[in-house]
């Protein structure tokens, strides 16, 4: 074995909070890498600021530091731990950037720490545009003509030589943040200026556009003996021009002949060898659809989102092997973990097709710019496996959990031909559906190809789906068509719709014909070798490879694609549930469709079904596995939504019963319970019509909180202050109907908090209370929160405890439950109860050391908390203070208002832990990516209602040495109160527009505080200011509560300075 014996301790750097373009895939790769290193006998130290991950579980590394991923903190960990080496290649761009910083600041040299996996030189060669160009020149490999520039003038001069369209890529930004394609001079100037300001080194690359070329990716690996191999090839449905993270992708490549494939394979292997990477690497190539001409687009010298996808698409665990290679092992001495009979030096061969479709957040952010380009916008993705493209594509579409299960998006039918053509040319998230609509309108494929540049091969596959749809519609009940439809991915629900039957009727017809899905194994070798991978997908073939083989099977439903409001936390819970079941001797079966996550690593469960999470797909797996029951409470709303229909089909739901979940979620029933238990609750009503809503609101009294029923992540929730606002909300934000009532609650100002509880019917364990820093009105997922609660009196805590216990017992909760409270005048009011795992479970599990998911799983399976050693009530706690801070991805999404509101907007979170609240808070700010300002100007724009409070805080800020800038109205108010306003900033509008932009760009502003009247959340001035602050990466606060906490923290940290 060539394993390095000179290394003992290795530091792994995680990727930090989930943001667009750096998401759950690094939890998967990071935890795999840590476990792989432990398996090889190394002592593993991990630093990552994200508590909502499997990676930061104590079991993953020998020591886990949940600390900000900054040079300072990583350096301190290095000083304390004295590791022999660092593995920076599994922590995304964050890991690589930190490695660079550690080197630049001499930390690596000083502490004699070696970088594993890839050298700094290689990182620079792959990432620095000029060095990359030089390397390509040396290797005689073509790259698009380009030039690195640092000023707009330089850029404009160069673009004359290459013409439009031209691509602008800022240096060192995540996921190509701030980049774009400019079609003319005006666009060019705008994107270039923005790109220059976003680049930490004020550098952008101007590049010749090769839009329309085929975009091909290779995931390649290499070891120190220079063994190189391809794990997976992938072809983007969308040609070059759309970020690969925002592209629909198929694996393996679909339209390349062997000659083209081998040509690009050779190039990819040549690159990984030239970069001397020891591990995995992603190579993106552009291939002319009409010749052998190709260009290298980019190389990622680390594991990436694409490598996670490739791992799930092939079964080949790239990150795990990359870690092993990094410590000296070679591919020919590591066993292939899939077959266990062959070696890792093996290029996987697929006998199926994989489709990946991104999941975008535009359902939440309906104001956002939905156009796709070089800036990634998706928050997550789904993957589906089938035996043909049609099947894989349709399975992927119904995995998305969007408003349609099929390629027909109802709104497309209303588009004019011109509008439709525009949607084809200017790709948005819904282009796939626009293409399908064009096919329905009998536009010719060459015509569609002309508009989209998408290969005719793919377009023909969509046409084929349409032809089958047409045939199905033309021949209702044609049972001979059923098989064809199922083989091409049509769901029972779609067929039922075509045939005007119920889904159950189709299901029965299908079963009557013995037309059942067959489950095939993902084995890396196309069946050539015997494999024991417990990894399956459904298709309609003749032989199934999966049969029920245990009478102790439990099916755990995952949470599907990552989206705003349903993030990685639910994957965390799914994983722990499955592992607990395994340990308890059950056969744990996971069903999920998200390729980025840990739960879809086949080594986590006993069996993994990579499938859409719809009723049909789950029932099919239930038919095969015959489980004792299904656990839905860890898979977010995706799984919860399936509980009732599954039960109706005779499937046992384990844990809290469907009836009890309904009692918690149905307003009226819940109100009855609350009344009966005598727990205070904000006055609330349910409205089934517009008029009813108005009447209810007036009865309750404004302000009121309105929202649709049955939601997660506070979608379309709003605080309204008047009839007029309510009318607007009712007509634009929701569609009220007898099936979808709107909830109207009295809005109580005060501190919010939430608790999670585990209940077995007798004991109600409350691991802790999380106090929100921002007051009511901001979604709990977007609030900063602290554990343990800092400001609650014992009376308040007692009320919280008592209410939680009563609710858990009354609702017959079995497993986890989350309760949200608002504390108003020392009285605790219940806002809502969710009888399922919540977003805070990983955070609380980590800080309280109570394994909540594990306990909940045991309870669900019938164990008693008392027997495990837990008792009713809030668990005692004496540790540090922990602050959770949300992290947003606003800089990736144009036109999304960053104002915090009842609608959740954050994509991830970090944790700051320390001895005091102030220190923990400081770490949370640092971890979320902001330098904490200690001087400079604070720009205030405050709404009228809060001006008085702002004045008090402003005074404290001046005391701390800040200077105050303010917009006119706020400045007037402050000056009236004797506060010196150093700088008055004109409002937007007349000529203020320009001025404010300049002020923000001047870098004298260290923080922007902008609050608005709740009813005016779309006030344009404020929105522009917030957008500007974000684009200049200035710390932006939209709640005085946050500012207050920050100021308090700064006061704690600073000395007082006063003359005698």
């Amino acid at each position, binding site marked *: 074995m060539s394993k390095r014996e000179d290394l003992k301790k290795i530091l792994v750097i995680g990727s930090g909070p989930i943001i667009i373009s750096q998401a759950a895939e690094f939890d998967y790769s990071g935890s795999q890498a840590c476990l792989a290193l432990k398996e090889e006998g190394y002592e593993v130290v991990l630093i990552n600021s994200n508590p909502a991950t499997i990676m930061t579980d104590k079991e993953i590394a020998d020591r886990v530091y949940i600390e900000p991923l900054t040079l300072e903190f990583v350096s301190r960990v290095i000083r304390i731990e004295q590791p022999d080496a660092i593995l920076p290649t599994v922590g995304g761009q964050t890991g690589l950037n930190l490695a660079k910083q550690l080197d630049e600041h001499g930390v690596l040299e000083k502490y004699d720490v070696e970088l594993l996996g890839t050298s700094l030189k290689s990182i620079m060669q792959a990432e620095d545009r000029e060095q990359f160009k030089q390397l390509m020149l040396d290797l005689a490999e073509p790259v698009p003509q380009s030039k690195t520039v640092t000023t707009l003038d330089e850029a404009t001069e160069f673009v004359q030589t290459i013409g439009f369209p031209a691509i602008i890529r800022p240096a060192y930004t995540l996921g190509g943040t701030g980049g774009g394609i400019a079609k003319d001079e005006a666009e060019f100037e705008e994107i270039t200026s923005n790109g220059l300001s976003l680049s930490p080194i004020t550098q952008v690359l101007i590049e010749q556009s090769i839009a329309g070329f085929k975009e091909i990716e290779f995931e390649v690996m290499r070891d120190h003996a220079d063994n190189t191999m391809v794990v997976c090839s992938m072809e983007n449905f969308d040609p070059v021009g759309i970020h690969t993270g925002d592209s629909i992708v198929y694996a393996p490549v679909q339209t390349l002949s062997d000659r*083209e494939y081998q040509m690009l394979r050779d190039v990819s292997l040549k690159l990984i060898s030239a970069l001397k990477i020891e591990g995995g690497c992603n190579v993106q190539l552009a291939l002319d659809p009409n010749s052998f001409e190709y260009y290298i687009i980019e190389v990622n010298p680390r594991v990436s989102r694409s490598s996670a996808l490739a791992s799930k698409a092939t079964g080949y665990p790239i990150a795990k092997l990359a870690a092993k290679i990094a410590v000296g092992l070679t591919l020919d001495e590591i066993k292939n973990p899939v077959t266990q009979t062959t070696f890792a030096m093996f290029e996987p061969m697929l006998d199926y097709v994989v489709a990946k479709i991104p999941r975008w957040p535009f359902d939440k952010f309906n104001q956002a710019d939905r156009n796709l380009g070089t800036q990634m916008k998706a928050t997550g993705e789904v993957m589906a496996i089938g035996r043909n493209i049609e099947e894989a594509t349709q399975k992927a579409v119904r995995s998305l959990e969007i408003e349609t299960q099929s390629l027909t998006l109802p709104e497309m039918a209303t588009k004019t031909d011109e509008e439709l053509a525009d949607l084809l040319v200017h790709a948005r998230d819904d282009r796939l559906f626009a293409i399908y609509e064009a096919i329905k309108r009998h536009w010719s494929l060459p015509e569609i190809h002309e508009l989209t540049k998408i290969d005719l091969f793919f377009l023909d596959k969509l046409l084929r789906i349409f032809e089958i749809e047409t045939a199905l519609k033309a021949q209702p009940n044609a049972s001979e068509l059923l098989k064809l439809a199922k083989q091409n991915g049509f769901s029972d629900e779609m067929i039922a719709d075509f045939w005007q039957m119920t889904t159950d009727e189709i299901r029965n017809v299908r079963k009557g014909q013995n037309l059942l899905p067959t489950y095939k194994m993902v084995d890396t070798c196309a069946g050539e070798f015997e494999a024991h991978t417990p990894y399956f997908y459904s298709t309609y073939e003749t032989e199934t490879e999966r049969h029920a083989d245990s009478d102790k099977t439990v099916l755990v439903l995952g949470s599907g694609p990552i989206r705003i409001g349903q993030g990685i936390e639910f994957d965390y819970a799914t994983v722990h549930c499955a592992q607990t079941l395994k340990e308890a001797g059950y056969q744990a079966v996971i069903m999920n469709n998200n390729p980025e996550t840990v739960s879809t690593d086949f080594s986590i469960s006993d069996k993994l079904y990579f499938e859409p999470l719809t009723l049909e797909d789950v029932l099919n797996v239930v038919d095969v596995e015959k489980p004792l029951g299904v656990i839905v409470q860890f898979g977010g709303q995706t799984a919860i939504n399936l509980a009732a229909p599954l039960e109706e089909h005779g499937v046992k739901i384990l844990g809290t019963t469907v009836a009890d979940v309904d009692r918690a979620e149905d307003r009226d029933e819940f109100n009855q319970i609350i009344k009966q238990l005598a727990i205070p609750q904000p006055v609330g009503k349910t409205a089934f019509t517009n008029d009813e809503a108005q009447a209810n609101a007036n009865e309750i009294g404004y302000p009121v909180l309105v929202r649709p029923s049955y939601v997660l992540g506070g979608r379309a929730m709003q605080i309204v202050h008047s009839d007029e606002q309510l009318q607007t909300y009712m007509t634009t934000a929701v569609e009220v109907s007898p099936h979808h009532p709107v909830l109207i609650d009295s809005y109580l100002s005060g501190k919010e908090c939430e608790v999670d509880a585990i209940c077995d019917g007798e004991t109600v364990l409350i691991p802790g209370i999380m106090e929100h820093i921002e007051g009511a009105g901001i979604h709990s997922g977007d609030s900063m929160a602290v554990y343990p609660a800092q400001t609650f009196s014992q009376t308040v805590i007692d009320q919280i405890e008592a209410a939680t216990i009563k609710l858990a017992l009354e609702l017959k909760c079995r497993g986890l439950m989350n309760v949200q409270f608002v504390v108003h005048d020392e009285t605790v009011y219940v806002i809502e109860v969710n009888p399922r795992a919540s977003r805070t479970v990983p955070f609380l599990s980590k800080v309280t050391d109570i394994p909540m998911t594990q306990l909940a799983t045991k309870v669900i399976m019938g164990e008693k908390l008392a027997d495990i050693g837990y008792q009713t009530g809030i668990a005692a706690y004496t540790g540090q203070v922990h602050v959770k801070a949300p992290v947003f991805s606003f800089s990736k999404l144009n036109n999304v208002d960053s104002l915090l509101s009842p609608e959740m907007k954050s994509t991830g979170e970090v944790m700051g832990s320390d001895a005091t609240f102030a220190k923990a808070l400081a770490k949370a700010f640092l971890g979320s990516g902001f330098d904490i300002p200690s001087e400079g100007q604070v720009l205030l724009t405050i709404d009228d209602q809060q001006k008085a409070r702002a004045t008090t805080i402003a005074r404290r800020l001046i005391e701390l040495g800040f200077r105050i800038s303010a917009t006119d109205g706020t400045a007037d108010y402050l000056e009236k109160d004797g506060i010196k306003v150093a700088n008055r900033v004109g409002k937007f509008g007349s000529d203020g527009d320009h001025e404010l932009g300049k002020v923000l760009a001047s870098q004298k502003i260290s923080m922007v505080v902008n609050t608005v009247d709740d009813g005016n959340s779309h006030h344009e001035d404020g929105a522009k200011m917030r957008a500007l602050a974000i684009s200049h990466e200035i710390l932006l606060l939209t709640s005085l509560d946050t500012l207050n906490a920050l100021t308090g923290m700064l006061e704690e940290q600073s000395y007082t300075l006063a003359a005698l």
Partner: protein
Amino acid sequence: MKKRYLVFENGEVIEGEAFGADVARAGELVFNTGMTGYQESITDQSYNGEILMFTYPLIGNYGINFDDDESVAPTTAGVVAHEVARTASNWRNQMSLDTFLKQHDIPGIKGIDTRSLTKKIRMQGSTKAAIVDEIESAPELINSLALSATKLVELSSTHKAYPNPNTGKRIVVVDFGLKHSILRELAERNCNVTVLPADSTAQEVLNCQPDGVLLSNGPGDPKNVPAALEMIRTIEQLVPIFGICLGHQLFALANGCDTFKMKFGHRGFNHPVKEIITNRIDFTSQNHGYAVDAKSVAQTELFITHEEINDQTVEGLRHKQYPAFSVQFHPDAAPGPHDASHLFDDFLEMIDSQQRQKELEQHV
């Protein structure tokens, strides 16, 4: 859609849909795991007498072009697929796979659960089968296979010598079912090639005054080509030799090694092969159902230079005295990776060093 059947020697029948030529044909059913390269594989004469099944569930997706054929008249007995693309999309596409198979009189059957069949072959070993429209016609076709088994090379090889002129080294290629890619690799290196029929004698080879001799790939059991062994034994003492695939097996037999029929062979291009002396691993293109028995090598003048890392199949041999070596895989790729194409350079270098040696000897 016309029905068609895949009938096995044990009488089992699988129903599918017809494509390609309307002709019934039998062969040994083998599977190839490559995800691209169906054109090269179908035109590879090493599949003569074999029904070729693709494990990747889609073929025909990029059509057929005029550049990537591996023979002029493909002799694959039939093609089994899950799906044949109805639309081929590639800038070099000249005709559909369906039309191509019709032109070359090769039947195809699609709509097959190829994974299920692949697993069956893996477990039970390769089997004889027939692609037919009338199930009853299958047994006779299958029975007649034995008769043609010994003639596969004769059916695949050229019957007349022909040149591929160039300005470089004079190379004689003995055609046992030659893939064009071997000629492409030699042409790229400016070799002045003469292709000779499989039954050429040593004298006929030597008459060409070759600098080196390349023993090509070809179909079937190497023991069915006994005449070649005598030729090789003579030539190897006089001229540098490079054997590929069947050529490798014949080189082994000629030097006293034994060969055996594998359970289901190696067909695909992800087979990792290690060069023992350097530990270098290449992914190789392979297509063989027979292999050299490793144990039999020890008693001979040959030694093993390469092996497959998963099942230790003998992948390369070299003569202890003579400048002669051979590989089981296809360094000419097509389809498959180019990782091992350096072997052609090694061959030409071997010729150079041999000539230097000779000159030196003459000088002394």
